[in-house]
Structures are given as structure tokens and as C-alpha cells.
């Protein structure tokens, strides 16, 4: 018997991230493919907004149908039934496969080690709240408006990216989020 018994966990092989230029080229081609297949770009909050409307419809159907924002969205039946929902499910699968194959999947509460779990819980929730509200004001997020909009040379996309970066730069100096 020569089974080595070690107290340390097995060494996992963590593959490095792709170089930014390679990742950027790949992302650009995926975005171009999306435009060719669908006529629009990639997104994210289209799905979370629909999921929120669906949740509202499930918990409080009358109030959701009467709501000025959700009402029109839930008129045509299940709001989850749309391309963007499937696209975000695809993102989840793609991210899982990539992380798993590269040895980078690890269950964790990222930020606990740096700022503690209670504080990280607060920053994650607050950050999500700000982004969720902001994405409804702009009718898009970093993916849908910033990335996809800029590829179509849309003016709004560049205005979005400018304030996104400026405020992010300032806020990251005022608050330690992770």
C-alpha cells in the first residue's frame, strides 16, 4: 500500500485566464454572431426584469397587472417566455462549463476574506439594487447598452460608458465593496 495521506487538500490545476486581447476578439465575434442571428446584441437585465415581473405576477397578480411598468410586460402571458431569458440561461451554462473545465469552479462567498461576510452581504445587495434600478432607467446594462450599443455606434452607449466609468472610479475610492 502506498497511498499517500496528506492533510492538505488535493492540489487543483487552475488554468490561467485568457489574455485580454484573445478574450476581446472572441467576445467581439460572439457579439457579431448574435447580431447576424438575431438582429440585436447580447444582454442581461432583460432577463432579470422579466424574472422580476414574473415574480410579481406570481406573488401579487392584481398589483403587477395594474403597475405602469410591469403591466404591459405581463399582458402577453408569461414574461419569461423570451429570447433574452434563454440567452441568460445560456450564459449560466457557458460560465459553469468554462469555470469547471479550467479548475476555477469554487463555492465561496467572494469578499468574505477581505471585508467579512456581513459587510459583503450588504455591498452585494446594495450594488445589485443600484444596478437593477439603473438598468431600468437606461433601458439596458453594461452588456445590452454599453457593449452591444457601442458596436452599433449608438450615441447613448458611449454616454453610458462614460458615466459608468467616471462614477465607478469615484465610488470605488469611497466604498470598499469586495
Amino acid at each position, binding site marked *: 500500500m502506498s497511498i499517500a495521506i496528506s492533510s492538505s487538500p488535493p492540489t487543483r490545476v487552475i488554468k490561467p485566464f485568457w489574455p485580454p486581447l484573445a478574450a476581446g476578439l472572441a467576445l467581439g465575434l460572439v457579439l457579431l454572431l448574435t447580431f447576424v442571428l438575431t438582429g440585436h446584441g*447580447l*444582454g442581461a437585465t432583460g432577463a432579470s426584469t422579466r424574472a422580476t415581473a414574473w415574480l410579481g405576477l406570481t406573488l401579487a397578480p392584481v398589483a403587477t397587472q395594474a403597475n405602469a411598468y410591469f403591466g404591459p410586460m405581463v399582458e402577453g402571458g408569461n414574461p419569461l417566455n423570451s429570447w433574452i431569458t434563454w440567452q441568460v440561461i445560456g450564459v449560466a451554462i457557458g460560465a459553469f*462549463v468554462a469555470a469547471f473545465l479550467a479548475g476555477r469552479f469554487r463555492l465561496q*462567498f*467572494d469578499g468574505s476574506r477581505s471585508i467579512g461576510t456581513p459587510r459583503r452581504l450588504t455591498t*452585494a445587495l446594495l450594488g445589485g439594487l443600484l444596478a437593477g434600478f439603473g438598468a431600468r432607467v437606461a433601458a439596458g446594462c*453594461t452588456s445590452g447598452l454599453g457593449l452591444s450599443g457601442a458596436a452599433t455606434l449608438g450615441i447613448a452607449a458611449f454616454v453610458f460608458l462614460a458615466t459608468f466609468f467616471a*462614477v465607478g*472610479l469615484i465610488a470605488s475610492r469611497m466604498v470598499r*465593496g469586495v
Partner: protein
Amino acid sequence: MFPFSDAGIISGLICGFLFGYVLENAGFGSPAKLTAQFKLSDWSVFKVMFTAIVVAAGGLYLLRVVGLMPADAVFVPTSLLMAAAIGGALIGAGFAVGGYCPGTSVVGMFSGRMDAMVFIIGLMLGTFVFAGLYGPAIETVMALAEIQGGDTFTDAWGIPELVLLAIMGAALVAIFYFGGRLERASKGPVTAEEAVAGAGDRPPV
């Protein structure tokens, strides 16, 4: 003739799968790596994003000039500049505080990060708050500063697409050059090992 205007499940899953696969491989499931962009020590977010924008914009331009894609064939966001500016500011703040943007929070959650799931709950809460407050006041603010002439720089102000592509290409080179210098002057890009270990103190330069 492109685009196919496919709105089906398969194209959604394929485009999404590739999107998530690339984002995770770029390191964008890690809030430590994502927020390092705002600390100016890791320029991956801008390098990847602007490379992708230039590739996709150049590709769309080429498809149009060779006649494979008619003009106005793809969706362009409406030039509601006040809405874009406020939304950008709030999402920038949310990114700095929460560690993700909406798309990358999905990547974070499916690379095992439970804090990303909390961020997504926050996203939905923010959406509820918006829907609760939605009415004439918000609509008025969101309609401010709309460019009437058009939604793109070309339609609104007649700037040729090739000029715009050249400016974006030059900006991309500048991002790689100056970003690289700032990375070398600081702790540098967050590595995969550091990202998997989770945000925390990084060894000094």
C-alpha cells in the same frame, strides 16, 4: 441576407453559452478582478470590452459595405442621453460597490460565488423599486436630452462610420498602451489563482 432575426430558444442558448464561456475565461466572474479595473491595477475589463466593440463594429460595417446586411438592420439604442447617463452612473456605482454588473453576476454565480446570487437578488429588488416608482416623473426625466437627429453618430451628426471606427481603433491602442503601463506600475492583473482564492489582500508589488 442578414440578419436572420431569429428569436428562438436555440439561438438564445448558443449565443448565451458562448457569451458566458468567454466572460468566465476572461476572468469576469471574479469581483476582485472586475473591481480592479476601477482601482486601475487591472485593465482587463476595458481591454476585453473595447476589443469586442471594435471587432463587432468593424464586422457590422464590413457586412454592410459588402451588401450582406442592409442599413438599419440591427437594433440601435435610442439616443435618450439623460437616461443613459443616469443609468450608467448607477450601474457604475453598483459595480464598484457590489463587485459585478448584471451580466457578470450570472458568470460569478455559476462559477460558485454565492455573493453573486445576493447581487442578483439586489438586481430584482432594484427592478421592483423602479416599477413601484415608475410614473410621469421618472418618464419625464428619462425623456430628457434626446438627440432628435438620430441614434448613431453618423445619423445624428453625419460623422462617417470609417472615421468613428478609426477613432475607436486608436482608443483601443491607447487603452492597451496606457492600461499596460498602469498595470506594471501597480499590482498588475488579478490572476486566476487569486480570483479563485477570493478577494483579499494581495502581495505587494
